[in-house]
């Protein structure tokens, strides 16, 4: 059997809330879209931040192991984590407007994301980035790159965030409720975008959401994070195929 791209077995403690996640375990295969559902406050975002080891920035502590492409991220040093973040493992946050730096132009933010992992100069890369914007359904003009985040619509901002996430062709994108801030129209378009990224580049996606309908539409496999023991309750081929995603009250009794 081929080893999964990502294999998570973790518990998470916050100083004032120990065992926020208790022994959460799931695997994601190469090129798979894996859905993680759960009601709000159950720790879905904690999972999203724990995998790239960014939870420390929010005061959390991760125990266990996170095997990603043959390395244990829990044991990795910060230096190595920095090389993995953004290059092999990208993160798309829930609220696109706050995920972009309000004081920087879009171009500066792309340039910074590019420079973090590449020695190729920005002026050589810019045409490729414009093509990327185009494929993301964004204008490719300089005028757009010169804008500040506050001048974008939420849908545009989320496309920018996703474009920045795929800049280095990561093997896994962690998308933490990427559509919950969007209107239904752009929601569908963003989901299409993820589907295309997955099909064209074989990018694996961890899709975290409380929107079961979108999850059923997008994901190959899904799981439910139950609030009572922080345990991944079940893993099914798709949510719609077998009706195993139960309301929390039911899953608690299981």
């Amino acid at each position, binding site marked *: 059997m081929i080893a999964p791209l990502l294999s998570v077995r973790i518990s998470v403690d916050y100083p004032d809330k120990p065992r926020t996640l208790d022994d959460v375990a799931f695997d994601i295969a190469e090129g798979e879209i894996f859905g993680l559902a759960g009601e709000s406050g159950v720790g879905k975002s904690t999972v999203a931040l724990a995998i790239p080891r960014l939870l420390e920035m929010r005061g959390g502590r991760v125990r266990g192991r996170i095997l990603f492409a043959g390395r244990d991220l829990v044991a990795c040093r910060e230096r190595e984590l920095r090389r993995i*973040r953004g290059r092999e493992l990208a*993160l798309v946050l829930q609220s696109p407007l706050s995920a972009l*730096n309000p004081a920087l132009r879009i171009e500066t933010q792309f340039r910074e*994301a590019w420079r973090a992992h590449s020695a190729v100069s920005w002026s050589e890369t810019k045409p490729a980035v414009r093509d990327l914007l185009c494929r993301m359904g964004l204008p490719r003009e300089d005028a757009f790159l010169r804008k500040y985040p506050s001048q974008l619509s939420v849908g545009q901002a989320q496309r920018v*965030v996703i474009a920045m996430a795929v800049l280095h062709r990561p093997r896994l994108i962690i998308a933490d409720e990427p559509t919950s801030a969007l209107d239904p129209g752009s929601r569908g378009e963003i989901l299409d975008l993820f589907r295309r990224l997955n099909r064209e580049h074989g990018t694996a996606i961890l899709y975290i959401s409380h929107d079961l309908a979108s999850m059923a539409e997008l994901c190959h496999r899904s799981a439910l994070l139950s609030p009572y023991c922080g345990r991944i309750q079940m893993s099914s081929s798709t949510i719609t195929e077998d009706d195993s995603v139960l309301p929390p009250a039911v899953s608690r009794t299981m």
Partner: protein
Amino acid sequence: MQMGLIRRTSRVILATIFAVMLAAAWIAPYSYDRQFRDETAAAPSRSHLLGTDAIGRDRFARLLYGGRISILLAPAAAIVSVGLALIVAMAAALSGGYLERIATVVIDLVLALPWIFLLLAVRAVLPLNTSPMASAAVIFALLGLLGWAAPARIVLAAAKTQLRSDYALAARAAGCGNGRLAVVHLVPNLFPVASAQFWVTAPVFLLSEANLSLLGLGISEPMPSWGNLLRDLQNLPSLRHQPWIAAPLLLLVLTLSCCHAAQPSAEDLR
């Protein structure tokens, strides 16, 4: 838009004062140390717009030259202070944990320092015949190097808020290191706070120089400064007979209030 009008007016006044002081050498009718020995303590006249002082120097010329040093060096010292504050605050916020606690303790210690005694001590160490320019430079360098603590505390709080934001998280998730995070992502967002701190600190330094010079510890004679011009006011009865000697005081108060009124408002910063 009443506030906008006040802000704009005070910026114009400040710019005018700044320009006039910089051009002192061309505007002033005489040099600041030229003595008119037969016209000591004269009243204002056409040749001496603000009269002359006790040893016959033109008060108007001394007022112009006196402002030059203060108005150049106080903002420079404020820039040094706020720059240091930014560096210390960002380093502390980024390293977090016990390093941040150490930085906080150091900030508290510097804030608790009786700086007037420190300046006294430093001034005492300097040779008596220190040139006026050197004494001015030393004073403002010390002010700049000691004044970072108050802005640092405020910038530290702001930096911590910024680091908790989603964009800092996203920058980290993109593989951004501490240095780039600080310089590229944090500085532009801390700039409004830092610039407000600059506008608060610069007038404080102007006033500190005036206080020190009043004590005779500031800029040494014969070089005028707003502080040592104020020493003439120590003799209050003479103020009644010669009200024009209050001109440096009025100019100082005007400059200080304009500095405070010229600060960008919260709406500007958004």
